[in-house]
C-alpha cells in the first residue's frame, strides 16, 4: 500500500484584507473562510502549512512582459486616472480594477504557486495546494477576467525544469484561455479545459476545435459544455477524457485548477455540479499518483467556495469530512443548514447537455488524441499480444482420467500457440 501523500498547503493571512471593490464578485475573503474551515475540521493535522514568499517582479517576468509587471507594480487607484492609455493597453479598469495592494495580492498568490511547484520539484511533497492561485485568464501582456498575473503559467514553467511534460487540467466554468494560449504551440504542456462555451459566455474561446498549433498541435484539449451539466454527466466525461489523456501523454506532473464557479448556485457560473461531483474530479486526478499542484480559481459565492475547497483539501488528505460544519467564526455563512452541502436553489437548472452532444465531444477529443504518440519524442513500443500460459503440463496428465469441464476449458489453446515460425506466440515463454 502506498504511503500517505505528503501535502504542502500554502496560505498567507494577508489575502483576507484584499478587496477588489464594491460589487465586484471576486472576493479574496473567501480564502480566509476556506482556510478557517479547513482548520476547523482539523485538517492541518496531516499537512504542512507554509506561508509563500511574495513573488519578485523578476519571477513574474518569467512569463509576463516586464512592462506589464512594472506597470502593475506602480499603478495605484489614486494615480490611475493619469494612465488611461496604459490601462486600456493592459486591459485594466473594468473587470480587472486597480485596487489598493493589488500588486501585493498578485505576489502572494503567484508566490504560492511558484513555491508549490518548487516543493514538488524538490520532492519535498507529493501534493501542493494553493487555493489563492488558479487565476487562469491572465495573459502575457494584459489582465483579463479578474486575473492579473497568471500564476499557473509560472508554476508550470517551474515544473518544466524538472519534468519533460506537464499536464494542466482546468475545471473552472470558464475556459482556461490564459494558460492555453501560453502553451498553445508547445507539446511540453498539454492543457485540458472543461468549461461553459457559447451564449457569449466569457471568454468566448474554448471550442473543441481549438487543439493547439505547430508543435503543440493536438496538445490542447477543450471540452465545451452547455448550461446545467450535472454530476453524473460531468464526472463520466471527465474521467473518460482524463484517463485517456494521462495514458497517452504520460505527464511527469499535473496541475489542477479547481475553480469553484462550476458549482451550482454560483453567482457567475451556470453549471449544476454539487461539491461531491466537483471533488470527485480531484479524487480521480489524485489517483494517478503523480506530483500534483492544486490551485483554486473562480468561485463567486463565498460560502460555497469555502465548502468546496475544504472538502477537496480533505479529499487530497484522504479524509472524508462530515457534513456538519464545526463551529467557527464564519459559521453564519453556512446557514440555514450549516452543512457542507450546497443549499438547494429555488431555480432548477435544466441540463442542456444531451447525451449525444457529450458523446460527440468525447469522440472528437479521442479522435484528436489518437494523433499524438505515447509520450512525445519517445517511440511507441509494440505491445506484444497477450498469450496464453497454460497452468498445467500436458505431458503429466493422465489421459485416462476424466477431467471436469472447467479444467478442460482451461486447456484450450490458441491456434497459433505452438505454430512453428516467426509468428510463434510463445516466444516469451522462455523468459517467463
Amino acid at each position, binding site marked *: 500500500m502506498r504511503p500517505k501523500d505528503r501535502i504542502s498547503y500554502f496560505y498567507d*493571512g494577508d489575502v*483576507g*484584507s484584499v*478587496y477588489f471593490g*464594491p*460589487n465586484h464578485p471576486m472576493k479574496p*475573503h473567501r480564502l480566509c473562510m476556506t482556510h*478557517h474551515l479547513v*482548520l476547523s*475540521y*482539523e485538517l492541518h*493535522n496531516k499537512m*504542512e*502549512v*507554509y506561508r509563500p*514568499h511574495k513573488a519578485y517582479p523578476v519571477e513574474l517576468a518569467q512569463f509576463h*512582459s516586464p512592462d506589464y509587471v512594472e506597470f502593475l507594480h506602480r499603478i495605484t487607484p489614486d494615480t490611475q486616472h493619469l494612465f488611461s492609455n496604459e490601462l486600456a493597453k493592459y*486591459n485594466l479598469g473594468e*473587470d480587472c480594477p486597480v485596487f*489598493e495592494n493589488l500588486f501585493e495580492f498578485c505576489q502572494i498568490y503567484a508566490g504560492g504557486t511558484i*513555491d508549490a511547484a*518548487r*516543493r514538488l520539484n*524538490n520532492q519535498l511533497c507529493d501534493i501542493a495546494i494553493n487555493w489563492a492561485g488558479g487565476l487562469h*485568464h491572465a495573459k502575457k501582456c494584459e489582465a483579463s477576467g479578474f486575473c492579473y498575473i497568471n500564476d499557473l503559467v509560472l508554476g*508550470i514553467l517551474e515544473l*518544466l*525544469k*524538472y519534468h519533460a511534460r506537464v499536464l494542466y487540467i482546468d475545471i473552472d466554468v470558464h475556459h482556461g484561455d490564459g494558460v492555453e494560449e501560453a502553451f498553445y*504551440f508547445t507539446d*511540453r504542456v498539454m492543457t485540458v479545459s472543461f468549461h461553459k462555451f*457559447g*451564449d*457569449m*459566455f*466569457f*471568454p*468566448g474561446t474554448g471550442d473543441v*476545435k*481549438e487543439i493547439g*498549433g*505547430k*508543435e503543440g498541435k493536438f496538445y490542447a484539449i477543450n471540452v465545451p459544455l452547455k448550461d446545467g451539466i450535472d454530476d453524473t454527466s460531468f464526472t463520466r466525461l471527465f474521467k473518460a477524457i482524463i484517463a485517456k489523456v494521462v495514458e497517452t501523454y504520460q505527464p511527469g506532473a499535473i496541475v489542477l485548477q479547481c475553480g469553484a464557479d462550476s458549482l451550482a448556485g454560483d453567482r*457567475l457560473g451556470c453549471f449544476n455540479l454539487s461539491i461531491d461531483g466537483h471533488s470527485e474530479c480531484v479524487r480521480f486526478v489524485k489517483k494517478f499518483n503523480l506530483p500534483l499542484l492544486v490551485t483554486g480559481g473562480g468561485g463567486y459565492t*463565498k460560502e460555497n467556495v469555502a465548502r468546496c475547497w475544504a472538502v477537496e483539501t480533505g479529499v487530497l*488528505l484522504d479524509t472524508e*469530512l*462530515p*457534513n*456538519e*460544519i*464545526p*463551529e467557527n*467564526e*464564519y459559521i*453564519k*455563512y453556512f*446557514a440555514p443548514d450549516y452543512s457542507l452541502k450546497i*443549499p438547494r436553489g*429555488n431555480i432548477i437548472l435544466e441540463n442542456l447537455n444531451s447525451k449525444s452532444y457529450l458523446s460527440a465531444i468525447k469522440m472528437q477529443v479521442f479522435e484528436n488524441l489518437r494523433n499524438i504518440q505515447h509520450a512525445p519524442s519517445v517511440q511507441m513500443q509494440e505491445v506484444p499480444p497477450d498469450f496464453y500460459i497454460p497452468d498445467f503440463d500436458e505431458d503429466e496428465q493422465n489421459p485416462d482420467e476424466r477431467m471436469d469441464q472447467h479444467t478442460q476449458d482451461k486447456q484450450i489453446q490458441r491456434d497459433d500457440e505452438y505454430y512453428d515460425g516467426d509468428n510463434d506466440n510463445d516466444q516469451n515463454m522462455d523468459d517467463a
Partner: protein
Amino acid sequence: MVVDKDLRGHFMETLNQKKNDEECMPSVLTFKINSGDDDGMGNVDETKSMELESNGSKISVEDEDLMISDSKESAACSAGGGARNEVDTESEVVEGDAVNKKTRASLKRARDSIYEEDSVGSNWKKKSPVGQQDYESIGIAAESDGGNIYSSQGDFIILDPEVSGEESACVVDKTPLWAMLNWLNGIAKDPRDPEIGSLPDLSKWNVYGSDKLWKQVLLSREALLLERHRTLSAKRLVWQKNQKMHPSMYEDRDGSGYKLRERQFEESFLLKASSKKVKNVSDTFLSGCHGTEEHIDNTIKNGDSSSSSAGSLFDNQGQEEVPLGSEFQAEVPEWSGVTFESDSKWLGTPIWPLKNTQRRSIIEREPMGKGRQDSCGCQVRGSAECVRFHIAEKSKRLNLELGPAFHIFKFDKMGEEVKHSWTSQEQEKFAAIVRLNPPSQGKCFWDQMFKDLPSKSRVELVSYYFNVFLMLRRRNQNSFTPLNIDSDDDEWEPGSVVRVVGHQEIRSSGSIFYSPTKPHSRCR
C-alpha cells in the same frame, strides 16, 4: 499569393478549354467571398461554372482554415453533367482588411448573378438548379480587381494578400496554376501514385525553385497561412474585447460545425480591428511564418500514409484564433533531460506544524475531520448564546493548538472579535454610511467611508466589513429570509422586499460579468 494578370488570362483560357472536358479537372482553390451578408452556401453552377473540381478532392478554404478535403463525391465536370454529389466542405474567402468595398461589391454582383438566397435566407442556391444536390461550397464569379484574380465563370478566386511586397518567396512563376492544382488533386486522391512524384528531403526543400509543383503548393500555402494568421489574430484580439457574436451561432444544428465557424468569421469580420494590435501581430507573424513551414513540413512528412494526409497540408482542424508570437506565448525551453537547479531558497516559510521549541501547551487534539457535534450541554441548544459559546470555545482551542501560527494566519483578526476594537459610535456610523450610499443609485459607500472614518485604516475597514458587518447581515438574513440569502447584496436590509432583479451592473458583453442566460434572480 501574387499571380499576375498574364497568368490570370492564361488560366481563364485554360479553364474555358477544359469546360466540357469529361476528364477530371484539377482541383481548385475555391474561396467564398465574404461580403458581410453572405451566408456562404451555394451550389456550383454547372452550366456556367468552370467545373474545376475533379473527381477526388477539392481544396477549399474553410473559415480561414486551408484544407484539402476529399470530397466524397466529385463535383460536376461539365455543363449538363450528371448529378454531382455533395461537397461536404465549405469554402471561404480569406479576406483581410485589405479587400475594399469595390471588390466586395463586384464580387457580390457576380455572385448575385449566379446565386440567390433561398427563402430561409440561410442558404444560397443557384438560380438555375440542375437537379443535383446542394453543394455546400460556393463558387463565386466576379471580375478582377487590381491584381486579384477572379474567375468570371469558375469556382475559384485568388486574392492578393497585402504582404505581397515582402514575400517574394510567395510569388508564383508563370507556370500555369492548373498544373499545380492538378498535382495537388492527384496527391489528394492517391498520395502514393508514382506519377505524382515525391518530395525530396526536408533539408533540400530550399534548394528547389518554384518550378516544382510541390514547391508551388508549399509556397502558396505559406502565403495563405500568413494571410490567415494575420487576419485571425486581429480578429481574435478584437473579438475577445468586443464580443458581438450572435447567440444563434451556438445553436445546435445538424452538421453545423462548419456553419458555426463561418458565422463567427462573418460576425467578427464586421468588427473594427484595432490597428495597433494588427501591426504588432503582423510583425510577429513574419517571424512566426517561418515556424509554420516546419509544422507544415511535419504534416507532409507524417501525412503520407493516410487519405486524410493530403488534407493535412492545409489542415487545421481548430480555429486558429490563438495569436502566435513572443507577446503571447511563454518561453518554453527544449527538454534536454538535464534538470535545472531549481531555486531551493524560496520554498515557503513553514508555519505548521510547529517546531518543537514552539510548542507551548499540551492539549487534547481533536481527531482530524471532526464535524459539529449536535449535542451539547447547553441549556438551550442552538440558541444564540449556545452558538456564541461554542464558537468562542473552538476559537480558544485553535489558539492553544496553533500557537504562534494563530497570529500568523491572522485568526485573531477574524470573526466578530474584530468589533471589539470598534466603538459603538463607529459601528453605527459604518452602518449608516452603507445605508445612505446604495449601489443601485450608483454610489460607492467606500468613498464616504474613508472620509468619515479617518481613524480606521483601509485594512481595518475591510476587515470590519467582512467579519462584522456582513456577518450581522447574514445573521439577519438567516432569520428573516432563510431561503433567499445573498450576503453580497449590499442593499439588503432587514424587512426589505426581496429583490427579484439583481442590481448587478450590466457590463459590456466582453466582460466576465456578462452572462446572458443566467437568471438574475437570486438562486437561493
